[in-house]
């Protein structure tokens, strides 16, 4: 799903930035050029910005995954799509390409039953959208999108499998969109019975119900993060309330000011960092020996080195040790994606059930 604020928070975006962004302030990540979560951070947080056109991130994240593999890093990329977005052409092009390349890529399909006002049954003649994975020869999971523990465990397993080289994996999280498509949409087209059914399965409440039990021990990290997020969100709200007015909307000269201040303005960066005087690398086909060079040379800093959640594949022992850590951000992001209790917790694997 695009504009997944939950995933942004888990990956480390400051709530302050999100508030500023949504108010289109000059001090926001896009310097007031957009008013929704269309921003990213390649260097530190490893987030690629979405765009409004649905599905376009799927081939892009496939490319990021391929580049990570090419550069010898054991990264996994993850993005989201909704039930509506899964009908776009680029969804299929991207997923097919990822499957053909066996890219380490996890796609979470949040089936919240509504694409704006169109119910999923009118969009797709499938009971389970995860069935689309079969067409591309990749594995898929169906998970109760409102069950935090199930989503976390499933996403964790999928990330680990993708990292192990099993190719892309599709997770269908069955959920429900509680609000309208946007502020103006009262969502009166949603049947009352459906709403009542899902409201009774609100994920935060379900999580609180079991939070005292040992079962959820594996998710303590999430709970802590959640508390921190809420705390940070409150602080962020205070911050915005107090200081947002000091950061004016962008207009006229301020925009130009920002343009001049872009640290990566290509006119300043120049092309010399890819010059012909570079050291010659032998055996470039297998990429042996070229990784270090490419990390050091490109962009003049170690961007490629730090793109993923884990260290480069070259340090295999370290990579193994950190793999549990490494899969966390993605999995935690998956937790955030839940909306409501889902119909079927069905097809998740036995190991996941064991964890539960």
């Amino acid at each position: 799903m695009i504009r997944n604020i939950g995933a942004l928070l888990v990956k480390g975006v400051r709530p302050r930035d999100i508030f500023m962004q949504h108010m289109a302030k000059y001090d926001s990540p896009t310097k007031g050029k957009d008013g929704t979560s269309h921003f990213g951070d390649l260097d530190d947080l490893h987030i690629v910005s979405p765009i409004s056109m649905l599905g376009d991130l799927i081939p892009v994240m496939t490319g990021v995954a391929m580049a990570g593999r090419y550069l010898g890093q054991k990264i996994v990329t993850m993005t989201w799509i909704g039930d509506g977005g899964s009908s776009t052409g680029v969804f299929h092009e991207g997923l097919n390409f990822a499957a053909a390349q066996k890219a380490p890529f996890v796609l979470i399909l949040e089936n919240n039953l509504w694409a704006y006002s169109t119910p999923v049954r009118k969009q797709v003649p499938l009971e389970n959208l995860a069935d689309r994975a079969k067409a591309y020869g990749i594995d898929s999971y169906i998970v109760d999108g409102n069950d935090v523990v199930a989503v976390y465990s499933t996403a964790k397993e999928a990330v680990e499998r993708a990292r192990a080289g099993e190719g892309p994996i599709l997770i269908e999280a069955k959920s429900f969109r509680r609000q309208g498509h946007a502020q103006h949409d009262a969502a009166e087209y949603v049947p009352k019975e459906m709403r009542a059914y899902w409201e009774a399965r609100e994920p935060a409440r379900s999580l609180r119900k079991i939070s005292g039990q040992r079962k959820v021990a594996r998710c303590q990290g999430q709970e802590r993060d959640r508390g921190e997020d809420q705390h940070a969100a409150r602080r962020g709200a205070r911050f915005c309330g107090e200081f947002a007015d000091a950061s004016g909307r962008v207009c006229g000269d301020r925009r130009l000011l920002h343009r001049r201040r872009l640290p990566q303005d290509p006119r300043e960066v120049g092309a010399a960092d890819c010059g012909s005087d570079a050291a010659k690398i032998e055996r470039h086909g297998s990429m042996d020996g070229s990784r270090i060079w490419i990390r050091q040379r490109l962009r003049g800093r170690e961007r490629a080195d730090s793109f993923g959640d884990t260290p480069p594949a070259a340090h295999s022992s370290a990579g193994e040790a950190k793999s549990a850590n490494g899969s966390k951000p993605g999995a935690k992001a998956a937790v955030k994606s839940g909306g409501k209790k889902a119909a079927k917790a069905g097809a998740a694997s036995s190991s996941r059930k064991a964890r539960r």
Partner: protein
Amino acid sequence: MAALRMARRSLFSKPSSRPCSRRWSATPAVVLIGEDVGVYGGAFKTSEGLLERFGWERVIDAPISESAIIGAACGMSYCGLRPICEMQFIDFIVCAFNQITNFVAKGHYLWNAPAPMVIRGPSGGGVHGGPFHSANPEMYFVHTPGLKVIYPSTPYDAKGLLKAAVRDNNPVLFFEHKFLYRRIKGEVPSGDYTVPIGKAVVRREGKHLTILSYAAMMHTSLEAAEALAQEGIEAEVIDLRTPVAAG
């Protein structure tokens, strides 16, 4: 001029691959991605032999999914690679129009993410291609902020501008007129050189009128100027080379 004296004559179609191959020996950041670019060497053989030389990791045969090609290349460029995507015929670039104009072109403006990628392909008519294999769609992209568009007319410019495009930190569209592929010959220095993006060149001096042109029509314009000269009218011919360079 010394370089030119040393130069060998070369077919127009060759520079597309040559700068890549020379460049690649020193720069593993450059990867090629497109339909039939690997085993077959490209529909116009512009990447012939590159797969054997550089391996499947750097010469990637893609499915017939233009959006996926552009998207994946964009993702690679975010990681620091410098991908070159080939559209088998540039007509098919419109299948990826959304990906190019909304994702690739706006990324740097919106969230400061440079996408140093090149999208190239054979364009133009005159070779019995019909309505879907002869287009010149460069103007769609000239009118899209965030892209640079290159359309060379000589082998020398083709090599120099392609090198400049690969080294540029912006997304660059590189059109190759296929009417010129096997018709125009010119001298190409074997060394490393670039032609600056955004500099036009005067192909013919003249004082009575100016003809602005680029790509295959530049050669037609030169012929027209010669015809005019016989009537006593001296036409200046300017080759734009890069229809837009603002980025």
